[in-house]
């Protein structure tokens, strides 16, 4: 689970072009949207694509994303349960 969280942090930084953010600056429970990393709606779509492309998880209802993408911890937990 720890490895998955670190992997997710690296992917988020790389795929969302967070140029000035380092892996160690993202805490597991930091909010990804709003006052946390400040991700936006396009970033949310990128994360949905990332779940599908890298972990084989298709979100049937994009509204699910709100809870799944709350933090790296919630993402890692969801991926662990649903990855193919």
């Amino acid at each position, binding site marked *: 689970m720890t490895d998955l969280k670190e992997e997710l942090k690296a992917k988020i930084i790389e795929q*969302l*072009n*967070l*140029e*000035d953010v380092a892996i160690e600056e993202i805490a597991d429970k930091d909010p990804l949207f709003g006052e946390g990393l400040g991700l936006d709606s*396009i970033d949310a*779509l*990128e994360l949905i*694509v990332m779940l599908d*492309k890298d972990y084989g998880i298709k979100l049937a209802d994009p509204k699910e994303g709100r809870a799944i993408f709350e933090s790296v911890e919630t993402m890692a937990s969801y991926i662990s349960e649903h990855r193919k």
Partner: protein
Amino acid sequence: MNKEYRIQRYGHIRQGRISLNGIPRFESNETDFSIFIKSAYKNFDTQYPKFFKMDSLSKLALIASDVLLENENEKNIALALSNRAASLDTDRRHQKTIQDIENPFASPAVFVYTLPNICLGEISIRHRLFSENSFFIFDRFNADSLFEYANSLLANQKSEKVICGWMEFDQGKYDAFLYVVAKNGIFAHSIEEINRLYLTP
């Protein structure tokens, strides 16, 4: 429509050089556009993380507009930009992501830049401009059309000033030229002068 307007200032980003009214503001020997424009961003100490999410055309437009508007207080400024390649460079990137039939994952972050006028939105968001904006596709730099369009916007009181210019990016090649048209300014607003300024960075 008979009023005479003036060009207040102009800027270029061309061949590793960023200039304002012909005076260099940043120069680099870097030939890779992405490295060059990132160096310019850091050189100007630009604090705008969204820059890194933009496509090359919008990065070019953002830095060019930042230099042009650094001491500007007016917010009622219209935008009239143009180029030849539209958003073709980003269109190709998008095409690459979807043409692999086995692995067709389009990137939303790339797709949103597959229109050239998105760079106008980026400039408007950055500088909080809420006025008219248009992006034209021409075969080559077209001073005549920009001249007429700027005159029309100002004469019809659509804005207090107009930023006009050429914002071209394709396959690593770039050429940005912006100028501000207003009631007062140091350069004549004429087709001849616009062409002269375009050709003499």
